[in-house]
């Protein structure tokens, strides 16, 4: 009996193993991974040159540049493995629930939230980023603009330490930026004003499965910024919320590879917002406030201004004055800036990852605008400019 069981068992094992192998060899290949939001490696070219090509490796022997057929083939087999997302989920479930590891690929789950383990602080990068902001201030803004800095805490600020996860020292990061971006007058006062957003947000202000904050939850942030910059914003009651019908699977959903429910995304509408004229100031091409075509894509957050743009200009015909605002921001700004429109005739949003800060148009700063540096802790611990 035992021998029969073993015979059946080994046969079944080999059939499953070889079936997966067969699908790997001959199954259909995918172009992109929706869950990971990236292109998947395709079959590499096989030739004498590619076989003999050398990969570039770092000091630890890790491949940093794949040139050989063999290393490209290995990546291809990983990317094109059948049921790839499902197998990644198996791994995540095993790692989280069986091995009880606290994070998987630097993503942790606490309550309903998936968050990124933002640790440790990349001190050098934070200093580089503060020097970029200082250079922009020195070159374009000094004496010509009212300058403000606001740091968007990532959701880890509200979740990590409270739930026993590692996080960078946020206070230290805030202090480094404040010390690194300044223009001290004769009285010793910093002409650049820092706006603390930490008490205007909480964990509920963010999507469960994505990095970003929910637009419908950040009106208090807009109010705080407006108050600091001496302007006004529409109250929450002035807005109506539009539900995006497609379910929203945030970026961490793919990274964590865990079974999680999708979320709902809401877009804010008001008479001021809906009357704005939005375009790329360099090309003149119109940019939609909410690009509903992106609702079909794998990143619903790209609905805001159709994704990351190097420059966005928002003109508000219903503005009460002639104030202008220039916002240097990462993707967090895309959902927040529309909420600031009431107080400004014109808002220009600059993404330094897509345009060089060395060659900004001086005309942006001709009319003594308010200038806001609005970056998340995630960006400040990475790179805010190319």
């Amino acid at each position, binding site marked *: 009996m035992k021998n029969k069981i073993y015979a059946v*068992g080994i046969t079944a094992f080999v059939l499953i193993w070889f079936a997966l192998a067969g699908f790997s060899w001959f199954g259909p290949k995918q172009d992109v991974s929706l869950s990971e939001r990236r292109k998947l490696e395709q079959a590499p070219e096989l030739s004498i040159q590619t076989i003999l090509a050398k990969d570039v490796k770092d000091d630890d022997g890790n491949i940093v540049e794949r040139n050989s057929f063999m290393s490209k083939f*290995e990546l291809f087999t990983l990317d094109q493995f059948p049921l790839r997302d499902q*197998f990644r989920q198996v791994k995540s479930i095993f790692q989280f629930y069986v*091995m*009880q590891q606290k994070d998987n690929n630097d993503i942790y789950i606490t309550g309903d939230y998936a968050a990124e383990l933002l640790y440790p602080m990349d001190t050098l990068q934070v200093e580089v980023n503060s020097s970029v902001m200082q250079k922009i201030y020195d070159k374009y803004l000094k004496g010509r603009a009212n300058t403000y800095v606001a740091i968007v805490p990532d959701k880890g600020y509200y979740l990590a330490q409270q739930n026993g996860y590692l996080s960078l020292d946020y206070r230290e990061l805030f202090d480094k930026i404040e010390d690194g971006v300044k223009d001290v007058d004769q009285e010793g006062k910093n002409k650049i004003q820092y706006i603390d957003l930490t008490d205007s947000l909480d964990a509920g202000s963010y999507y469960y499965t994505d990095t970003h904050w929910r637009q419908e939850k950040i009106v208090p942030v807009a109010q705080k910024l407006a108050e600091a910059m001496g302007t006004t914003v529409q109250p929450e009651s002035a807005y109506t919320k539009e539900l995006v019908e497609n379910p929203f699977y945030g970026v961490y959903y793919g990274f964590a590879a865990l079974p999680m429910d999708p979320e709902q995304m809401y877009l804010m509408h008001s008479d001021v917002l809906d009357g704005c004229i939005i375009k790329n100031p360099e090309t003149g091409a119109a940019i939609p406030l909410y690009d509903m075509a992106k609702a079909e894509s794998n990143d619903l957050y790209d609905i805001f201004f159709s994704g990351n743009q190097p420059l966005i200009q928002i003109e508000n015909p219903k503005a009460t004055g002639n104030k202008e605002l220039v916002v240097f921001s990462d993707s967090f700004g895309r959902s927040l800036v529309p909420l600031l429109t009431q107080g400004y005739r014109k808002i220009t949003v600059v993404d330094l990852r897509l345009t060089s800060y060395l060659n900004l148009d001086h005309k942006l700063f001709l009319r003594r605008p308010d200038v806001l540096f609005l970056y998340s802790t995630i960006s400040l611990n990475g790179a805010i400019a190319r």
Partner: protein
Amino acid sequence: MVFSSIPFLYYFLPAVIISYFLMSWLVSGAVRLFGGSERTGHKASIFTKNLILLLFSLLFYGWGEPVYVFLMIGTILMFWGCGIAIGASKTQGMRLFWLIVSIVVSLGLLAYFKYTNFFIDNFIKITGMSIPLLNVIMPIGISFYTFQCLSYTIDVYRGNVKVQKNPMYFGTYVALFPQLIAGPIVRYIDVEREINDRQHSMEMFRLGVRRFMVGLGKKILITNNIALLINAFRDAVGISQGSVLFYWMYALSFTLSIYFDFSGYSDMAIGMGKMFGFNFIENFDHPYMSKSIAEFWRRWHMSLGFWFRDYVYIPLGGNRVSKSRWVFNTLVVWLLTGMWHGANWTFILWGLLYAVCLLIEKFVPAIKKLPAALRHFYTFFLVMLGFVLFNAKDMGQAGSDIACMFGFGNLPFVNDVTLYYLRSFGVLLIVAIIGATPLLKNTANRLAESPRWATPVAILECLFLVVLLLICTGFLVDGSFSPFYYNNF
């Protein structure tokens, strides 16, 4: 290509298995169809099997470094030729001559590829002269296959094995991919019969699959995950977030990791050997259960220990010599053992550390009278310290690591970072500690032998292997983080 990878598991190995059995069946069938005898058909089948294994083994080897396939082929032909020459020599002097040729060539290859930069670097440090390093790239597995080739020529010289007249059969032995890059060090005498003739059975194949999967599980689920902890430790130390406890966690982690890594690879090698009809020698026998250093080395990397015993220690006289000569023999063997592991003073010191421990155990018989628990503790403690030395990138780091373990690094005993990783990897470390003992294996064997539990155990075993395959595949698909410590040998 490493065993624990998608290309190997789902492309290479299935292709070899299909080709191996299908081609040999077709060939033996064709021979019989054309009037050949059963015996001729069987011989043709063995020939085909060896040829398939050799070709795939060369492909496997060339996958890592295509150019070095020619070195492998050259080495095979050289040692095969030496074996032929030794066998054909009419005088003892000529036999010895060809043996010496094989020793000089193999050790020369090893010295050039593995130790050139080490010697040049140390020469520069001693003399202050400026000499450019050659930056020689070490062929994968050279430490293993040169020793295997040497074992052949030495055993031919001693008359322990017959000369292998078929270069393709000899090449199959040398290049056999299951044990080519990470052992066990399979001596020709152990596989001579099977190279020339071997049998297969469903049961042997099943046991091979089971052994392979256990090794794969050790490597992917335990070793690779512990490696994340080790990396986190180094990152924490790099930003001054280390603690005394974290250093001890690191020491324990690496000690467990290297065992599961190496024994996992050996399990995969032995398992694949069985699939193809070979019975390779065991390489590990729960070494962390040892109650002395001497016992540890009878359980750890046994194939290396046997090799040095039979080809260095015994020819030097072993322990059947004066005390001073025995001390010398011991120091030589362990110096060489350390050097075999790598071209770094840390490995040499690691080897000599064991020599000193063995000498102390020999000359202080009172140690054997200590309680078993204490002996077990001191053995594991010394082994763990040894592995901290082994894994350090240089003597400076080794000294720093050991100093910090004992509180001389001006570090807190514990901090938040340490506690986070202890909570995160605690379950894994406990599983690894239990897995390093024979508890699971003995329990499974006892149940399997029991009439009441034999059937349920058989069913569970089959299910376990399938689930293990799927989980391991999940880990492989999710990333490519899969370092193998002994890949540098």
